[in-house]
């Protein structure tokens, strides 16, 4: 008998790692220092030097300082017994530990909400093929400036460090070095950009004013609600605000030190705004600023639900008056309120993350995101226990964010529709295909530990689905309907894509092999969710997109559309696409969320958006960043920077 059969030490489930709860600046104030250090619990994995794990690889190179900082070994016994290195600004190895821990936590939250393993967006090789990308790379000291970004091209997070502004630098030593990689919020924010890019690769494409703003907003929402998962911080802040989270507090603020050190006095962004200004949505263009409208809306919804959930506690604590006496509130009350805040925030965060599977694959707007949130949540929580959806709809409305093409603001009209009147599509997944989908599901479930196999299996299934749609679905339509007009109309209504060449839309890219309009299946994902009532749902989420050439010149567009001129190099790419949610158990197509490739209205909006300019010298010399995105010549800049190149440095001279 081998010794291991007698007793085997189980692998640990989690690893505790010390991090700053916010950033180093909070250590300098007595009332926040106590809550600023915590040991974050992250999933156990063998990491070794780096750390390099399943999802992340930390490589600490600082070219500006001509330095490699030796990698930390988190598996070292000494570090294992003391939850990693103690927080220290002067030790690069602690920085490595912190970026690893916070990014891992963010990934974990994301996976729990989505119910599946996440993949990073694939690397595109020189032949245009997608290659599996195992690791998101993290460079904690990549830039010598007040900035940090996720680089979609390098599949890496680049963090900067910089001397704090000499004036108004708040708690930070003027001229002292500030590290963006020690800001909990900035790490979460940038990691979320990468996660979102993995799910929706086209949400980085500036096709309308909301797209990049949504990227920023989503990253901020995740960073913000991650605050509530830290019990000590939560309790301390609830005690300090006496349960009123709508007053100014640490939980609602993002990137304190960064904001102060760049001379902006306060935090970089705060979720608690002034009263909602419905005109701001019409006039705010810059992605971060526009995104903060959405963040404020979501945070407002959180506050509404939280307040209603603690009303009874307040009555109990105050003998029915609901008015708290002066002074500190009872620790038991703090605990109960903190519990409610944690529960509500977790639900709201999950609503926001799950909605990602209910979004159109391209050209998203805030209104569509609201519909995605409402539909996703209603699938799980049909009766809206807790009033989450009402709160969300109401707070979007107060900021003037509406969904287009809906009859009213009621919940029912915000829900996505099943494919209306399209029997072919509804029946399409009935037969043997349903079995194949289930087989795919079983296969993917079994491969939970190998993300690379998940990727490869999905790649294979994507080409299966593409064949089904192009070949089988097309022929089914042909059987069912007599005239081409009828078919075109019915496909337009359901998928909103072109499956056959259309004389009026010759700007759509044609697949050279088939001679038919090119379609690309972006992804075939599995979505599992367990509802409040423990009802479980499993869907296959299929995302399709189609490309059309866009020209700034209207006459040129018309000529290429009509086939009067050959389709030469376009000024930009216009995309249509559809997301299908298919019930794995029944094969029924539950929703189709589509954006038409033939929508000239949308094309005009995109053209207008790309033509609009910003008032900056950068624009004059480096060109319109929105248009540059579509250029292949490298004039494309990093799209997700914390600050953009046209922002001037705030310095004193």
């Amino acid at each position, binding site marked *: 008998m081998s010794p291991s059969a007698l007793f085997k030490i189980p692998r640990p489930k989690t690893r505790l790692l010390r991090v700053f709860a916010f950033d180093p600046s909070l250590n300098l104030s007595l009332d926040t220092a106590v809550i600023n250090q915590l040991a974050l619990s992250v999933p156990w994995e063998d990491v070794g*030097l*780096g750390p390099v794990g399943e999802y992340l*690889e930390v*490589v600490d*190179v*600082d*070219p*500006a*300082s*001509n*330095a*490699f*900082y*030796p*990698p930390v070994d988190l598996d070292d016994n000494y570090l294992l017994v003391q939850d990693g290195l103690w927080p220290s600004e*002067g030790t*690069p190895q602690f920085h490595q530990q912190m970026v690893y821990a916070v990014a891992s936590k963010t990934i974990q939250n994301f996976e729990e909400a989505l119910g599946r393993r996440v993949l990073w967006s694939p690397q595109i090789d020189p032949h245009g093929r997608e290659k599996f990308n195992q690791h998101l*790379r993290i460079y904690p*000291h*990549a*830039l*010598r*400036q007040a*900035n940090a970004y996720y680089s979609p*091209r*390098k599949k*890496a997070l680049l963090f900067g*460090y*910089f*001397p704090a502004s*000499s004036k108004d630098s708040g708690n930070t030593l003027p*001229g002292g*070095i500030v*590290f963006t990689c020690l800001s909990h919020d900035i790490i979460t924010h940038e990691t979320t950009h990468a996660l979102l890019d993995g799910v929706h690769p086209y949400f980085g494409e500036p096709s309308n004013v909301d797209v990049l703003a949504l990227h920023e907003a989503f990253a901020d929402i995740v960073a913000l609600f991650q605050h509530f998962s830290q019990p000590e911080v939560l309790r301390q802040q609830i005690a300090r605000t006496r349960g009123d989270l709508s007053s100014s507090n640490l939980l609602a603020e993002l990137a304190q030190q960064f904001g102060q050190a760049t*001379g902006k006095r306060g935090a970089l962004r705060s979720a608690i705004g002034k009263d909602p200004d419905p005109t701001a949505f019409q006039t705010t263009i810059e992605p971060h600023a526009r995104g903060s409208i959405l963040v404020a809306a979501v945070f407002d919804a959180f506050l509404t639900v939280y307040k209603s959930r603690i009303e009874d506690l307040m009555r109990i604590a105050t003998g029915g008056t609901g008015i708290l006496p002066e002074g500190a509130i009872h620790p038991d009350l703090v605990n109960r309120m903190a519990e409610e805040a944690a529960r509500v925030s977790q639900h709201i965060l999950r609503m926001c993350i799950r909605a990602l599977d209910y979004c159109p694959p391209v050209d998203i707007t805030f209104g569509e995101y609201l519909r995605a949130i409402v539909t996703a949540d209603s699938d799980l929580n049909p009766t809206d226990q807790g009033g989450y959806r009402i709160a969300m709809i109401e707070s979007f409305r107060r900021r003037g964010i509406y969904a287009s093409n809906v009859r009213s603001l009621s919940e029912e009209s915000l829900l996505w529709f099943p494919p209306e009147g399209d029997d072919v599509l509804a029946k399409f997944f009935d037969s043997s295909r349903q079995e194949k989908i289930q087989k795919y599901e079983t296969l993917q479930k079994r491969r939970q530990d190998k993300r690379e196999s998940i990727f490869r299996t999905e790649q294979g299934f994507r080409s299966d689905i593409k064949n089904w749609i192009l070949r089988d679905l097309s022929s089914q339509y042909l059987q069912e309907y007599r005239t081409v007009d009828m078919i075109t109309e019915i496909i337009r209504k359901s998928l909103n894509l072109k499956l056959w060449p259309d004389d009026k839309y010759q700007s759509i890219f044609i697949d050279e092999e088939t001679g038919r309009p090119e379609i690309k299946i972006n992804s075939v994902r599995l979505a599992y969710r367990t509802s409040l009532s423990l009802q479980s749902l499993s869907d296959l989420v299929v995302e399709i997109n189609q490309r059309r050439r866009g020209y700034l010149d209207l006459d040129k567009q018309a000529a290429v559309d009509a086939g009067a001129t050959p389709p030469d190099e376009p000024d930009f790419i216009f995309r249509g696409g559809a997301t299908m949610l298919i019930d794995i158990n029944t094969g029924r197509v539950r929703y189709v969320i589509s954006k038409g490739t033939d929508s000239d209205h949308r094309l005009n909006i995109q053209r207008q958006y790309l*033509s*609009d*300019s*910003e*008032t*900056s*010298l*950068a*624009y*004059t*010399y*480096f*060109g*319109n960043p929105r248009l540059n995105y579509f250029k292949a010549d490298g*004039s494309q800049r*990093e799209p997700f920077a914390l600050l953009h*190149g*046209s*922002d*001037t*440095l*705030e*310095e*004193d*001279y």
Partner: protein
Amino acid sequence: MVIEPTPTAGTVNKKVLRSVRVRMYRQGLGDCFLLTFTNTDQKQHHMLIDCGVLPLSSGGSGRLDLIAQNILAETGRHLEVVVATHEHADHISGFKSASEFFGLNPEEKPPQPVQVDKVWLAWTEKKDDEQVKKILAKTNSLALAVTAAVQGMGATQSQAIQDILLFEGASLDSDGALADQGAGTDQGVHKSEGAGFDQSIPGKTKFKIAKTMVQIMDLLRGWGPVDYLEPNDVRELPEFGIKFHILGPSRKMSMLGGSTLNGQASAVSDPGRRLKSTQSTAFMAAATKFAGMELDEMPGEGLSKADIDAIYKLSLPFDPARSLSLDEAKKPYPLAEDAKYPEKLQAGYRDFFKELYGFGDESAGHGPEWRRIDTDWLQMGETLALQQVSTINNTSLVMAIELTENGKVLLFVGDAEEESWQTWETKNADLDKLLANTVLYKVGHHGSINATDQVMLNKMTNSDLVALIPVDMKRADEKNWEFPAKTLYDPSMAEDNQKGVLFKRTLGRIILNCDEEGCMNCDPIFDENKPWPGTISMDPTPEKLWVDYTLTF
């Protein structure tokens, strides 16, 4: 061709001013304006505002030679006032490239002297002014940082920055690489003064900072008595009924842009106080090291080599003893058989960086090239280059020329950007009134989007307003620069009403001196069917050197 003015109601009082002629020269991408005021006694007053061209504009500096001769012929070699708005090649290069005609070249004096009564410069050209020293410290440190970034990134990656540096006096040679040439001297007459890659040093290319602009300003200081103008200054010509209101540059440091902190300027290095590390000095210190530039001193104020080293040390995030340098990490680290733990750890670190980051040999198992970040941090050089150019643009002398008899105003803004516009000062006049009475606006910075403040433009409500845009769209297109900005003026939508704000304000009365074909191959562009309040005429010679806009009273 002559276009007759649309008659306007005349004034009754005895007049002294008879006409104002604004001659816009057509040299390429650059400003050169000759203003001629004529009074009722037939006396003339000539004022030259700028004379420059961006290197390799379609006209080139050869064309500036012709223009210089035309100026001298027009004025009888007597200029009452010469104005140089700011230190950019596209505004002042001609004073050097055509120096032999102007009599500014000490070696080649023209047979007849040129008389200049006054040279007007902004206060930002006063060498001994404390505030100017601070601005210089800023621009010098920026220039150095940008230079280092360009050299660190290499010629290809830094193309966009190099293009901007053309304004600082760098120029391209025939091979397409930035060469070490003077401003506006395509023929390479004034070698080794501009910014550019100096190919003469073998091995590593060295990038130099332009000194040309500074030299040109020195030439101008020697041309005639200098009047350094301050905001709120007023200069008068009573015999012509003219007042010159100086609106900018303001003494508020916020006019430079890039800083929200007003007034309390402090230099990068304040003698007697501790050295400070700021974002740009920290960047500059690292970039110069990275680029292998040996600095003996900061070419601005008071920073010695020791100071620069100190700034570099201050800017390091960690103790260098606790890191591996790039060269060190690359070195083989052979392990003896009985190697102990610390050595093994050392070897492990080196393997880690080789396998993940890589030192350039992917076939030997090094990390992939596409994920490396060697020069990503230098991209900040773009931001700094823009800031450098903006700072100098914002030192532009801005003046409103008021014709006191009828209150009409000619507005010359140089290349002032929005930050400057927003700090204009007029203690001795009402700014809104000056704007409302503006009948001629020399568009700032070749029509770029942020050099015409939209709020101020909307205050230019005079029904006689015309705009002059000195621009070379051919040159701008080559470089992908948006001159003029389409929101301001969109030449491609000629028949459309939405041709931009400027089009609306001027009712379409805009004169552009060059179109997409460049200066030499086309006429200036304007719509002759509009009701022009003044007369437009063009150089009848094949050279088509100028276009005139004349207001007669």
